[in-house]
């Protein structure tokens, strides 16, 4: 039962923080809240017997990507959203696109939930079919990743390289040329 409790705790925290990320207007807070929600999600990973991915989630997402975001926020000195807006207000009370968006999001949740209720039997638990060792072993992950997924791995590495070059080229000042 304890893991149920943990699941709900983490889940609630993740949902709350994510909601707050898009719920308020200060990008600085958004980033930090997102980090928090990542923490919660990595907790869920631990729950799913994927400690490795949990740690990687922290290192890569929280430790690298989010720092990058934080950086840009600081670099641009995080302008609040344009004054001509009603960000202080609750999302649903905004006119136009925002409200539509909220409605659509709700629709999507309902649809997905419905789809799940139709496709899955709610009773079978994640751990029902396989035991933890099969998925928690870093060794297995490494072996599979570098055998079955080696091509994807190489492709990703090239993608990273391209992204790096592109980022440097884009963020460079024109006067450098």
């Amino acid at each position, binding site marked *: 039962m304890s*893991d*149920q409790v943990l*699941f709900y705790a983490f*889940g609630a925290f*993740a*949902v709350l923080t*994510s909601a707050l990320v*898009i719920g308020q*207007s200060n*990008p600085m807070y*958004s*980033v930090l809240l*997102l980090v928090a929600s990542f923490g919660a*999600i990595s907790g*869920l990973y631990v*729950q799913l017997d994927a400690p490795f*991915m949990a740690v*990687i*989630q922290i290192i*890569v997402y929280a430790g690298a*990507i989010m720092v*990058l*975001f934080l950086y*840009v926020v600081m670099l*641009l000195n995080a*302008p609040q*959203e*344009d004054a001509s807006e009603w960000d202080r207000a609750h999302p649903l009370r905004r006119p136009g*696109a*925002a409200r539509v*968006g*909220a409605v*659509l*999001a709700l629709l*999507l*949740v309902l649809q*997905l*939930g419905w789809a*799940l209720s139709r496709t*899955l039997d709610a*009773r079978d*638990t*994640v751990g*029902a079919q*396989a*035991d933890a060792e*099969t*998925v928690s072993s870093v060794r*297995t992950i490494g072996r*599979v*990743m570098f055998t*079955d*997924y080696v091509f994807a791995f190489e492709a990703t590495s090239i*993608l990273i390289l391209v992204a*790096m070059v592109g*980022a*440097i*080229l*884009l*963020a460079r000042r024109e006067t450098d040329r």
Partner: protein
Amino acid sequence: MTPLSHYLILSAILFSIGSAGVFMRKNLITILLSIEIMLNAVNLTFIAFGRFLGVVDGQIIVAFVMTVAAAEAAVGLAIIVALFRHRESLNPDAFTSLKW
């Protein structure tokens, strides 16, 4: 143990929050953050299913997703910085023309 569907519903909620954020916000950075939320929601389903089926493939795909997310963040943020240099604004509606 927690039912698989709970995880899926949770990720569905997260995904919807992210997607709602994409066009409820008027700040490019926040929009990118929302995209990250969506990616994480997807990751969660991957890992949950991987655990459910007892295979590591889910985790591996998540690793790839993270890599792609990193690349996307790097390039996206670089673009944002470049844009911000042109217009002192992060409002996506300020960038409706392809060149100026």
